[in-house]
C-alpha cells in the first residue's frame, strides 16, 4: 500500500471519529439537567420569553433536526453563544487560545529537551544511577497531582524565595506586546521589547515547568525503551564490530530509529498537556482556554464547556493524524505492515 492510500484511509477514519465526537458532545449537551432555554433566559424570565428563546435557538425542533443544525453551525465555526460572557464561544476561545498554546508549547519543549537526553543517558547506562533517577522521575511524574505540584511550587519559588512571579502572563502593569502571533515571547522578540520578553519568560517558567514535569518521565522511559531495543539489533553490533566510535553508534545509528516510536508518545502526550493546561492555568491564573472553561463550569455555561470540548477533541485528533503521517514517512517498515 502506498503512503497516499494509507493517509487517505486514516483521513476517512478520522472523519468518522470526528462525526462521533460531535454526536457525543451533542448528546452530553442535551443531557444537562434542566431546561437549556430557561438557562439562557435567566431565572426571572417570563414563560413567553423562554418560549421565544426556545424557538429562536431551535430547541423546539426534534433532536435529529437539532443535531443537523448544530453540525452545520460547527462547520461554519459557530460554537454557540456563551451564557456567562454573552459573546460567541468561538470568539472567546480564539482570544484565549494563544496563551494556552504558549504554555503547552513551552511545556512540550521542556519535556522533550529534558526527557530525550535523560532517556538516552539511562539507556546508554542501563541500571546505573542515571537510570534510577529517570525511573524515579517517571514514577513521580505519573503519580503527581499536577494541581498540587503547582501550588507547592508557587509557595516555594514565589512565596518563600520570591524568585519568580506568582500569576498571570505579565506583571500587573506590564503592557502586552503588539499582537502578531499572540505568543508574548515571540511578539515581544519581534517588537525588540526585551523588558517585556524577560517579563513574559519569568511568568511562563514556573507553570510550564510544572506541566512539563509530569511528562519528562514518560518521554524519558519511551526513549530509553526504544533505544535499548534498537541497541540490541544486528546492525548496531556490526557497526561496533567495524569500530565505529560508540558515540556515533549511539547518536547517529541508534537514536534516529529510536525516536520514531517516541514521536507517537509525544503526540499522545499533547492531549494530556492540553488537559493539564486546564489545571495549570487555574493554579497560576494564566488567562488561557483552561481558565476559561473552569470559570464556565462554575457558572454552568454549557455552550462554552461543549465548545471547548469539541475544539480540543478535534485538535487532538488532527495532531495525532499528523503524527501518524510523519511516523509513516520516517519509518517505511510501518508502512509495509499497513
Amino acid at each position: 500500500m502506498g503512503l497516499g492510500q494509507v493517509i487517505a484511509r486514516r483521513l476517512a477514519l478520522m472523519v468518522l471519529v470526528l462525526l462521533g465526537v460531535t454526536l457525543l458532545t451533542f448528546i452530553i449537551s442535551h443531557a444537562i439537567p434542566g431546561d437549556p432555554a430557561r438557562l439562557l433566559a435567566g431565572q426571572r424570565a417570563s414563560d413567553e420569553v423562554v418560549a421565544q428563546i426556545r424557538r429562536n435557538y431551535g430547541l423546539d425542533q426534534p433532536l435529529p433536526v437539532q443535531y443537523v443544525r448544530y453540525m452545520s453551525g460547527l462547520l461554519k465555526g459557530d460554537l454557540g453563544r456563551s451564557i456567562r460572557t454573552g459573546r460567541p464561544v468561538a470568539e472567546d476561545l480564539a482570544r484565549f487560545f494563544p496563551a494556552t498554546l504558549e504554555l503547552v508549547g513551552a511545556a512540550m519543549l521542556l519535556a522533550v529537551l529534558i526527557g530525550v537526553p535523560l532517556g538516552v543517558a539511562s539507556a546508554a547506562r542501563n541500571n546505573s544511577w542515571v537510570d534510577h533517577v529517570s525511573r524515579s522521575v517517571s514514577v513521580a511524574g505519573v503519580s503527581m497531582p499536577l494541581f498540587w505540584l503547582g501550588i507547592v511550587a508557587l509557595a516555594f519559588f514565589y512565596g518563600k524565595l520570591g524568585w519568580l512571579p506568582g500569576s498571570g502572563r505579565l506583571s500587573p502593569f506590564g503592557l502586552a506586546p503588539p499582537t502578531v502571533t499572540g505568543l508574548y515571547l515571540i511578539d515581544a522578540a519581534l517588537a525588540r521589547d526585551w523588558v517585556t520578553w524577560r517579563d513574559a519568560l519569568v511568568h511562563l517558567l514556573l507553570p510550564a515547568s510544572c506541566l512539563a514535569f509530569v511528562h519528562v518521565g514518560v518521554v524519558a522511559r519511551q526513549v530509553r525503551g526504544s533505544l535499548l531495543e534498537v541497541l540490541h539489533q544486528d546492525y548496531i553490533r556490526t557497526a561496533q564490530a567495524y569500530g565505529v566510535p560508540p558515540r556515533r553508534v549511539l547518536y547517529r545509528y541508534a537514536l534516529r530509529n529510536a525516536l520514531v516510536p517516541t514521536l507517537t508518545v509525544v503526540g499522545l502526550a499533547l492531549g494530556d498537556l492540553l488537559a493539564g493546561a486546564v489545571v495549570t492555568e487555574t493554579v497560576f491564573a494564566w488567562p488561557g482556554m483552561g481558565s476559561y472553561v473552569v470559570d464556565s463550569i462554575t457558572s454552568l455555561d454549557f455552550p462554552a464547556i461543549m465548545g471547548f470540548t469539541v475544539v480540543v477533541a478535534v485538535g487532538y485528533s488532527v495532531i495525532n493524524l499528523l503524527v501518524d503521517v510523519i511516523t509513516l514517512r520516517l519509518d517505511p517498515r510501518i508502512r509495509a505492515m499497513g
Partner: protein
Amino acid sequence: MSVDVLTQRDPDYPVPDAAGRTRPVRRRRPIMAWVGFVLVIVPVIASLLAPWLATHDPNQVNLTRRLQPPSAEHWFGTDEVGRDLFSRVLDGGRRSIGAGIGVVLIAASTGIVLGGLSGWFGGKLDLILMRVMDVILAFPALVLAMALAAALGPGLMSSVLAVAFVRVPVYVRLVRAQVLSLREREYVTAAVAAGAPTWHILRRHLIPNSLPPVVVQTTLDAGSAMLLTATMSFLGLGVRAPAAEWGAMVNSGRVYLLDQWWYPTYPGAAILMTAMGFNLIGDYWRDRLDPRRASSAPKTTRTRP
C-alpha cells in the same frame, strides 16, 4: 558518553561469554513493589479506620481555632473554619481512594462485558463498539470527564461515573484482544463443538482466562483514576461541602498556601503517596505478566525479517 551495551548485564538479553554459554542474570527482588504496597496499604487502612483513628470530628467547626499550625493538639493544623486537618485527611481518604477504586471497578466490569461480547461475536457489533471506543479515546480524558460530570450535575458519584466512562475503552480493547486470541484455543473450539451455550463459554472459559491482564490494568489505573477524580474535585466538580476529599481540600487550601502552607500540603501529599503506591505495584505486576515488557526492555514494534 562511552557505551558498550553488549557487555551490559541485562536479564532479557543474556550475553554469551567467550565459550558461548549464556549465564542467567539474577533478577532483582521486587523492593519497589513492596514500597508501593506499603504506600497504598497505610492510607487505605488509615481511611478505613478513620472513625477510630481521627483525633477530632472531621466536620466539627471551631472558629476560635482557625488556621492553626500543626501542633500536638492538631497534628496537621486546622482549616479556615477550625476543622482538624488530620481528621479530615483521614476521612477524605475514604472518598478519594474509594473514588479511584470505584472508577476502575465500574470501568473494568463494563469493559469485560463489552469487550467479551465484541471479541466473541465480532461482525457488526464489534465494528460499532470499537468505533464508539475510538470516539471516546479521541478526547483527552480529563476534558471529556469534565464535560460529562458537568452535565451529570455536582456530586462525587457523577464525577466517578464520568471518569469511569472515559476509562472504559482501555478495558474493552484489552478484553477483546484476549478473547480474540482465546477463541482459537483448542479447549474453546472443543467446548463449541460439544455444543456448550455461548454464555457458558464466555463465563467459564473466555472471561476467566482474560482476567489477569485486566487485574494488572486495574492496579495501574487505580492511581491515575484517583488522580483524575481528585483533579475534578479540585476544579469544583466533585464532592459537595462539607464532605472532606483530598482534591477539594487542596482547592480550598490553596488561597492559604503562602501563610498556612500545611493546609494544601498534607492532602496533596496523601494523593501523591497513594497514587505512587498504586503505580509501583502496577508496574511490578505488568513486568511479571509480560517479561518482554520488563522495565529493562519495553515492548516496541520488532522488525520482521
